[in-house]
Each structure stands twice: as C-alpha cells, then as structure tokens.
C-alpha cells in the first residue's frame, strides 16, 4: 500500500517535462515497463488463429476490428516457462515502428500492473550479464519505491526478423 501512495504522488508531479509515463505489467513475478505512448489498448486473452511454421513465441493472429494483428507471448519471447492463461492474462496491443514500418502487435503478459512517471535519465543501464540473451531487449532498469522495474525496448522485442536476441 505504501508503494501505491508513493506512486500516486509521483503521478501528481507529472508536470516535469523530462518524465515519461510507463505502463508496467507483471511477468514471472517481475515488473516490466513500456512506453505508454506505444500502447493502443489492453484486452483480455482470446483464442487466436495459429500461424503455421512461426516461432513458438508467436501465438497466432487475431482480428482487431478488421486488422490482422499477430500475438506474441512475451514469456516465450524471453524464454520464460509458459503458464496457463488465466483470467488476469491480458494482451497489450502496441503500435511500434519497426524498420520504418508502423506495426500493430499484441503482447501476452501475466497481468497489467500500473502506470509510473519516470525520468528517463534515472534509468540505469543493464548490468553486463553476458550469459543472458534477454539483456538485449532491455532499455534500462529503474527503481520505483522499493521495486525494480525493467524498461523494455519494444522495437527490439517486436522485431521478429532480428534473431540476435533469441535463444537457439
């Protein structure tokens, strides 16, 4: 609860121009954040149509009001064990520019958490943990109250043609 209060206070001092808002979500008990301006909407999980011969983290394609949107399981993208999708499982629909092309994609995460205003320069670089591929996706680490939030680099997470961050 104390954390919540702090967060709300932070939100109130939103006027600072160098602060950006981040939507955070939970995955494997960790909190991750993404630039809120990239987020289009948040939906509950619905079954999708499998795309044949796609990487395992691509769950399939969904009909988003007439647009075909690929759905990516972020756990699998990061190589975290898959879990059963439950009522809290959500799809965060984001619009990201990948290689000069604006793409709309859906990300399956365990649950959405909160919105924080974070000054970007407060974000710390990822420690150099060489054996982790996932460092590649991370934009920086930031402390919010007692918690640590991992800020993601969505462009890298969603650039499916880029294999450099992938396991195997």
């Amino acid at each position, binding site marked *: 609860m104390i954390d919540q209060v702090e967060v709300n206070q932070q939100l109130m001092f939103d006027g600072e121009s160098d602060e950006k808002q981040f939507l955070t979500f939970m995955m494997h008990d960790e909190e991750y954040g993404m630039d809120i301006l990239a987020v289009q909407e948040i939906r509950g999980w619905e079954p999708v*149509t499998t*795309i*044949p011969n796609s990487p395992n983290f691509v769950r399939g*394609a969904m*009909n988003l009001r007439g647009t*075909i949107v690929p759905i990516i399981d972020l756990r699998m993208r990061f190589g975290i064990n898959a879990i059963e999708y439950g009522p809290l499982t959500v799809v965060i629909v984001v619009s990201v520019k990948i290689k000069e092309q604006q*793409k709309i*994609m859906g990300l399956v995460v365990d649950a959405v958490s909160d919105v924080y205003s974070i000054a970007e320069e407060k974000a710390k670089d990822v420690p150099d943990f060489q054996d982790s591929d996932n460092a590649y996706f991370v934009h920086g680490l930031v402390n919010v109250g007692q918690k640590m939030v991992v800020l993601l680099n969505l462009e890298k997470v969603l650039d499916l043609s880029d294999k450099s961050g992938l396991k195997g």
Partner: protein
Amino acid sequence: MSIDLSQFFDVFFEESFEGLDAMEAELLNLEPGTEDSETINTIFRAAHSIKGGSGTFGFVSVSDFTHVLETLLDQIRDGQRVLTAEHVNLLLKSVDCVRGLLSALQAEEEPDLSESNELKARFEAILGDESPEVVEAEQSETVSEALQSTTYQIDFKPESHLFKTGNEPLYMFSELAELGELEVNVFHDGLPEFLEFDPEDCFLHWRFFLTTTREEQAISEIFEWVEDDAEIKIEACGGLFEDESPSEQQPSASSTSSDAGNLETVQQAPAQSESATNNEQNKQAEESLAAVQKKVESVKSNKAESRKSTDSAATSIRVGIDKVDSLINMVGELVITQAMLSQIGDQDITESSIAALQEGLTQLAHNTRDLQENVMRIRMLPISFVFSRFPRLVRDTSQKLKKQVELKLVGEQTELDKTVMEKLSDPMVHLVRNSLDHGLETPEDRIANGKNPVGTVTLNAFHQGGNIVIEIMDDGKGLDTEKIRSKAIANGLINESDELSSEEINELIFMPGFSTADSVSDISGRGVGMDVVRRNIQALNGSVEVTSKQGVGSTFTIRLPLTLAILDGQLVQVATHTYIIPLISIVESLQIDITKVSKVGKGLEVLRLRDEYIPILRLYDIFSHQGAREELDKTLLVVVESDNYKIGLLVDDLLAQQQVVIKSLEANYQKVDGISGATILGDGTVSLIIDISGLIKLSGLRRPGSTELLVDLKGEEAEPA
C-alpha cells in the same frame, strides 16, 4: 523558394501524364495532311497546360521543351504550316521525352536532357527553316500593316509596397498581352519563409518577352503608374541584355536613368532592324531568348538540387461523382436500417418483433452487399486505361516490322480493378507484340495467301460471370503446331513418341524456355515469353489460354477475377484449424482410393488419378499441426493446380465455400511461406489463405528432391496410362 509548391506536384504530375496520354491518342488519330483543327487544338491545349504547370513549378527543362513544341503546334493550328508525317513522328517522340522528363522529376532525379535537347534542336530547325510561303505570308502581313514587329524584353521589379499603392500587376499584364504576343516569366526567389510572409507585400518580379508592332512608348505607358514604385526596364531584344543574369539586382536609383538610356537604344533597334530581314531578327531574338532561358535553367536546376526529397509513392484514383452519389445513397439506407433495428432492440421482445427483426436483418444483409459491391466499384476503372497504350505500340512495332496492321479495340468501357489493371498491362503488351511479330504475316505473304494485306489485331474485353475476359485476336498465320512440336521435342519438353492433340501442342508455348521465332528479334522471341505471361496472370489468380487455327489466326484469352480484394474461397479443416483455398485453383476434391496410392522415393506419396499422378501433400505436416487425421481413407484430397503442376492437398474436411475479403498478414507481421494472406470469417476469427505455388515451394524445401520428382512426373504424365 520558400512557399512549398511541392504539395501540388502530385496533382501536376498526374494531370501532365493524363495530358500526355491525350496528346498521344490524338496524335495517333492524325493523318498527315488531313488534320482537323479540333484534334490539333486538343494536342495544343495539352501541351500548353503542361508547359504552364511546369513553368509554375519551376520545371524549366519541361517548360522550355514544351514551349518549342507548342510553337510548332501553334503554327500548324493557325494554318501557317502543313502537318507532315515527320512532324507527327517528332511530336510522338517528344511526348515520350516529356514523359521521361516528368518521371525523372517525379522521382526527384536529375532529368536527362540529352534527348530533349536533341529533339528541341530538331524542332528549332523546323521552326527556323520556314517554308517560303510562310515567310511570304508573314511579310505581306507586315507590309500591309506597314509596321515591323519587335520583341521587347521587359523587366518589371516592383517594390514590396506595390499592392499598398493600389496597383494590380495582373491588369498591367493583360494590357501588355493586348499589345502583342506575350511571354511571362515570374521570379519568385524573393519569397520569404512562410512565417515571415506578408500577403500585402509583393515579393515577385517578372520578365516579359513581348512581340509587338507597337512603339515602345505604348509599353512604358502601361507602367506609367508604377514607375516610381518599381524597377522597370524595357529593351528591344538584340543582345543588349545578354550579359545580365536574370536574377541580378539593380539599384532602383539607376533604373530610371537606365530606362532613359534604353529608350534610345530601343528606338534605334527597330530602325536598324527595319533594314534587316525578318529572319535575321527572329534568329537574333531567338538566340538571346535561348541564352536567357539557359541561364534561368541553370539557376533553377541549382535550386532543384537543394530541394528536399518527398515521397510520392501513394497513388490516387479518380472516381466518377455518380459512384460517390450512389455510395451516399447506400449509406443512407444503411443508417435507416440500423435505426430500425435499434428500435426493435429497445422494445420488449415479442413474437411480432422477432419477425420484424428478421426482416430488418435481411434488409441489413441486402444493404451490406450493395454497399460492398459499390465500394468495389470505386476501384474499378474502364480497361481503356490499359488499351489506350496499344495504338502507339502497334504503330511503332508495325513500322519496325514493316507490317501493315489495323488495331481494333472492343469493350473499352469494361471495368476492372485498378490493381489488377496495373499488373495486367505487361503481360498484355507481351501478347500483343507476339501477335504482331509471330502472328501476322508480312503484306507480301498475306497477299500471296489471298488475305487483306492489312492485318488485324483485335483487343476485346468483356465480363463473364464474375470474371473479366480479355481476348487478343489476330488474323495471322496461327500457331504452327508442327513447328511447336518439333521444337518441344528438341527442347526435351515432350518425347517424340508422345501423341498430343493440337490443343495440347498449343499449350506447350506456355512452357518455360520455349520460343518458336526463327530469329530472335528485339520485339519478341527471347524465349522468356509466354511462361512469364502465364505466371504473371496466374499471380493475379487468372488464367491464359490460346486457341489457334492455322492460316486463320490465333486468339489468346485472359481470364481474370474482377478484383484482388475479394476471393472465392473453399474453407477446409486441418486438425482444429480452418484454412482457405482459392476456389479458382481447385481442380476437384475427392475421397482417396487407397489402392491407387503409391510411394515414390523419400516418402512422397502419389495418387494415380485417371492418367495423371498427383503428389499428395499432407497439409498438417507442412504446417506442423498436431491432431489431424492421418489415415488416407478418412481424409479428403483437394486437387489444386498452379504453375502447371497439379498437387493434392490432404485435408480433414471440406467446409463452406464463400467469398472472403483478403487482408494482409504482412502488414503487421511478416511474409509466411505457403500463406498468401488472411481473412476474417463470419464469427470474427482469422483464417489464413493458402498460397498454392508457395506451398509447392515450401514442400519442396522441406523434402529436397521432391521438386525434381514433380518434374519427372510431368514427363510421365504425357505417357498414355
């Protein structure tokens, strides 16, 4: 250069290309000697508006070139010059040239001026080399008026407060135009940034070339009111101003004095030229004009280089207002239906309201279908957009081949989706060239065969049950089945022992690497012909066939779906997944007779179907789906054809057939092998559309060697079973 004119470029280019098309079409209608003024006028108008537009936007290379074009056309229009075949050829070439210049400008490239300069020189040669009668006429004219016409160069550079003194330059210009022939050049290099732009200030200055019989006094009178508020220089063209750069700035103080000085020289100039011949003077004027224009050109081209590049990839489409009106009507009806339905929804459900609901839903379905059809119609354009390029092509090609050809166009108003149209154009050009080159005989041969020496090529388009059919007919010698057969045997496409019907032989010309032309010409016959045509048309979900009768002619028939946005699909089930197979590629669907299935090589199964061997592709295997039926006798086989290959796709079940709207999967994802797109089914779920030729490639990749097997099977196929 600070007003962003580039926002109008697209419109200008579009209109200019349309103008060029119109010019081309009219030029082809022109028979030398029998020109009617209306046709010439149309051509003139098109050239004129291109010149005007390009001048406005600073495309000097285009406006300069069209200027000479226009001069020639003007003379023809006024009857001062007789149109010759050479003129028509030259004009046609210049249409191409302008098109090239404009395309280069559109792509923001530096246009290649060599061709336009060469053509311009030829035009100038024609214009300079005036036929005696014309000169005579001109002289008699001038004699009767007892006056000499002189070209004046007038520089008009108003102070910025010109408008505030209540002067309207436009009035002065129209007065100037009344004095004689006026050419106006505007310099807008003084324009400030948009934010600093004051609409009440004048930032432009002008240079005129006025050819008039009037005294210079008459010109300076026009400028009398603005004398104190502007720099005005009036000079007779005669080399006096050659050293000046067009954008050179003169201090205003000296302008009045130089005016006075110039007055004298100008007064002298006509006196001198009176003794000189008309021609000489004209030449002088032209020379100095060219010098000025060259300078303008260099100044402008420097500016053009610094211009920022903008993207012009998006194309636009012109829609008739009637189509838009009918759409608005439809939407109106739809809104009424929606209102009706929501009214029913607000009431308590009773038995009578259910009936009304059903009725409303029927109406809604009706409205939606109408709306869909009408929206599709917006993308439809008459096929004359493709046909219109053929008169030119036939003319040029027949000249090159020394054949006499008449081109008939039938059904030009048949409508077709714009995207299909764009992709149709190349295959059609190929087929028409083929007909001209291989199909039609030389006039001598035709006379020898008792035919009209003028061959006929007919392009015919019509609708037939949701498809558009385009026929390319010639009355030439037809396909030589013997020659095709021997060629096919030589190329190893068929065996010598194979007995083929003439239709089957004709089909062979669509095989890769097949060309019967005795000599490779630059028109056709490189052996990359018909198979590419067929592939391109198949890529549009269409088909191409040939029928031919020796000595009578051949007909190529292209069948295409009206639109690429909608597809007739067969829904099939594979495990828990639903896929769509384009109906057009399905040959048949059947239950497998296990006794006719045999295994070839590395686990490839083939089914003997009548006298063909059909390789069986297990869709669940290719798409890596679990839980599908694997036993051949419990599944269904959908035989599909693509690129002349027949393959059987193993599916669990056949579901409904329906029209599906094609959506891009690539837009937000990436290309998926074996899948051409996606669609949304009635229940809102996404279903993927199978790309047959992609699937064949995919299966070939997964099982190396299987493509060879397919080719081998093709050879066996011809054997009598």
